[in-house]
């Protein structure tokens, strides 16, 4: 089982190493810049030195807690807007004639295949002072001419929504396409107004797609580095940026590792557990 070995070696083992290094102490001016956990003294005695200072710092310094909250806020609000913007598109695709459906789907997938770095870069031209979007907003009098949206939190929100919208639309479309639209007619026959039918039939039935899309947007958005770094201001400090700065600028590898472990505990493990529970539930329902 070569694939199994590969994933174990290059994916599972690294996490143990990250965990290990998060307990080391940073030493500057040597390579690699941290202390060994297990020390071999001259007399042959071996001692284990666990250093929890990095974790203590995460909890004590408000900078790190603020970064986690900021990341959750960016990701949460962007996920909501992806849903609001993506739902009508997914609904339109699902209800379109099959010939149109293919074209509309391809048009959603195409940006997803092109580089996200380049698309984030393209956003600069939209959001800088007198850019395409800021210029248009100034022309209709919504903002002062010469105002830039670039390097504000709003720019980060726009950037995340723009980058992750396809991840919301695709699972939603898949769910909505399987939906039996006869149910809506039945609801209408029974006297439901369109919005009532939507709220009580379509929306609950599309919940699996909403959850899948929300996870696909929310999780990577929390750890996002490129978008807040390029589009945000210096105060758009997210976990991804903190980890990057600790690692590359401050060269504090143990602290970067501790930031990563905290992110894993808060974000990835709950997701995987959720997925595991959902899969078991589906299997049980399939058997029942």
């Amino acid at each position, binding site marked *: *089982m*070569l*694939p*199994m070995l*590969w*994933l*174990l070696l*290059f*994916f*599972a083992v*690294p996490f143990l*190493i*990250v965990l290990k290094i998060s307990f080391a102490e940073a030493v500057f001016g040597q390579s*690699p810049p941290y202390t060994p956990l297990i020390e071999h003294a001259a007399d042959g005695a071996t001692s284990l030195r666990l250093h929890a200072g990095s974790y203590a710092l995460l909890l004590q310094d408000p900078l790190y807690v603020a970064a986690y909250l900021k990341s959750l806020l960016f990701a949460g609000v962007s996920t909501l807007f992806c849903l609001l*913007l*993506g739902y*009508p*598109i997914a*609904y*339109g695709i699902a209800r379109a004639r099959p010939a149109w459906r293919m074209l509309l789907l*391809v048009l959603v997938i*195409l*940006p997803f*295949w*092109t*580089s*996200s*770095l*380049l*698309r984030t*870069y*393209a956003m*600069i*031209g*939209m959001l800088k002072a*007198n850019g*395409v*979007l800021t210029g248009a907003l100034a022309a209709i009098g919504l903002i002062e001419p010469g105002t830039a949206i670039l390097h504000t939190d709003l720019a980060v929100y726009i950037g995340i929504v*723009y980058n992750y*919208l396809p991840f919301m639309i695709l699972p939603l479309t898949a769910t909505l396409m399987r939906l039996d639209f006869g149910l809506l007619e039945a609801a209408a026959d029974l006297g439901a107004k369109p919005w009532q039918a939507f709220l009580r039939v379509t929306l609950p039935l599309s919940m699996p797609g909403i959850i899948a899309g929300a*996870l696909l947007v929310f*999780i*990577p958005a*929390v*750890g*996002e*580095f*490129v978008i807040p770094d*390029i589009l945000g201001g210096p105060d758009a400090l997210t*976990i*991804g940026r903190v*980890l*990057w700065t600790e*690692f*590359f600028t401050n060269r504090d590898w143990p602290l970067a*590792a501790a930031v*990563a472990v905290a*992110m*894993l505990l808060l974000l*990835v493990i709950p997701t995987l557990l959720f997925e595991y529970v959902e899969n078991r539930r589906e299997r049980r329902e399939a058997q029942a």
Partner: protein
Amino acid sequence: MSRRNWGLWAAMAAGYALLYVPIVSMIVYSFSASRMATVWAGFSTRWYVSLFSNEQIMQALARSLTIAAVAASCATVLGTACGLALSRFGRFPGSGLLSLMNSAPMVMPDVMLGLSSLLLFVTLQQALGWPERGMSTIMIAHITLTTCYVTVVVRSRMAALDDSLEEAAMDLGARPWRVFWLITLPLIAPALLAGWLLAFTLSLDDLVIASFTSGPGASTLPMLIYSKVKLGVTPEINALATLIVTVVAIGVVVAGVVMHRREAA
């Protein structure tokens, strides 16, 4: 057309506009003569000329293409094996772990994958003196990242596939390897192409993991673009981005048409 449909159409148009206006405006400005990246000053192809004479960019491009091709090919082999194992062998010892490890890289933030891969390479280097950080470590990290995407594509194709053909071949006395080469592989070929393309573009696009795992002097194209963007926008990047977006779009459309034809035939 009812009022409700008008609302739907307006929302759809807004969404598609959000997806395409930034890319299209970037393409338009790549043909502007102005030194400012977003000021129009007449049609010109000077940025394309200066792009192709930029040694540094061309070297980074060649490096990125090499890494992406190697990583995508290895990931396709590994991902196909994973996909087959998960969809055909049912539950086997370790199948839960394999499935978990396969979905994990997809929900894992890039910074996390990059940091953990680098720390592994550093540890290995201390213990074994291998690997030297550079293109090979970026390739290894990219294979790990992209294998799971290939697995997902292969797995969904296998799920849609009728396994009676394979059973018939085995009933007729074909050995498992022959069944795989003559029956399974041709049937899942479109999925392999899709998986390879996906792995290739993911590797080509990656900035964060490459930055962590690269060694001195092994900058990939995204790393170069990132440092240029941080220093201020140069119109050359507009031209470069236009070329990449065009090539990828043509590639995806051609692959889509090929797969569509094959499935229809």
